[in-house]
């Protein structure tokens, strides 16, 4: 079975906090916010493309958590995996409602002193910037897959479950993305 990259103890802590939040414990809910708000916001931002929309999505996600915390069944799935799936679905729903499409995130290069002694370092920095810009421009499925793996620390199986696709389909997305980025790296 594929190992999970996330901290093995975090799932149990989330279960405990959910149980307490389900009983009305607002401090436990605040701890869940503190533990997961960054990743929820970040994934939402990647899909909807604007801070304001991502904040709206984050509100909807955590409202869903609050309303259904009492219904959580430990052992069925990891809370973080379920949270990512809800975030993804709500982000896609939100984007369907929003008329204007905002621009994707871009990496901006800073000027560098092109002294001959630093040429090799400059070359590497340029290649890295090309890779980072290429990541920002990946097709949606590949972008979300990469976000779940690299930012979320999910295993391939968990990321596939979050996206509602097979592991094989997820790995196909990752392979296409990595091949594209490796070509950028080699230029």
């Amino acid at each position: 079975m594929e190992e999970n990259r996330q901290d093995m103890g975090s799932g149990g802590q989330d279960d405990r906090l959910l149980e307490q939040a389900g009983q009305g414990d607002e401090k436990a809910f605040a701890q869940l916010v503190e533990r997961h708000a960054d990743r929820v916001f970040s994934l939402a931002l990647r899909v909807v493309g604007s801070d304001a929309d991502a904040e709206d999505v984050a509100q909807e996600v955590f409202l869903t958590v609050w309303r259904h915390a009492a219904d959580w069944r430990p052992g069925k799935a990891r809370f973080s995996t379920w949270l990512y799936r809800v975030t993804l679905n709500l982000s896609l729903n939100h984007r369907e409602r929003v008329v204007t499409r905002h621009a994707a995130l871009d990496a901006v290069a800073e000027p560098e002193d092109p002294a001959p002694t630093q040429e090799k370092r400059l070359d590497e920095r340029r290649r890295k910037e090309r890779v980072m810009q290429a990541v920002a421009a990946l097709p949606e499925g590949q972008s979300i897959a990469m976000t779940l793996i690299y930012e979320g620390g999910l295993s391939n199986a968990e990321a596939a479950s979050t996206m509602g696709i097979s592991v094989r389909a997820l790995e196909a997305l990752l392979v296409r993305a990595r091949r594209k980025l490796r070509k950028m790296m080699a230029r």
Partner: protein
Amino acid sequence: MRLEEFEELLERRGADPAAWPWGRRRAARQLLGRSAAARKAHDQARTLDSWIGDAVRPVPASAGLKAQLCRIPQNHPRGNDRLTIGLMLKTRPWRGLCYAGLAAAVASLVAGVLVGTMQPPAESGHAQMMDIASLVYGLPPDQGRLQ
């Protein structure tokens, strides 16, 4: 393991050996030990992983957003009915049961009205309902819209 298989492994799973399938790790490590080409491919994959990690680094939620999220319980109280009924069941069981029964009857009536008048969920809301169902009943994940 051949070099081509190792390169495919790197593309599917990345450079972190912890993400490689158990059954292939030993063969992959053996290849790394004897093949300079495999080591070069692994180094490149590690560099790429590092750069991708920098590119997808989480954008932190603002302190203002987190504060707003923490106010959700106050803005959307939901525990009052359960708390009241729970206390009544402990102190005055029969009265608590009566109130619990009355609350259930009212909830059923409201649900019946809603079901009768509610439109079928739009496709965009279906995924959310399936998420909630999976939360409660442990159903398998819904088929997503990303392929």
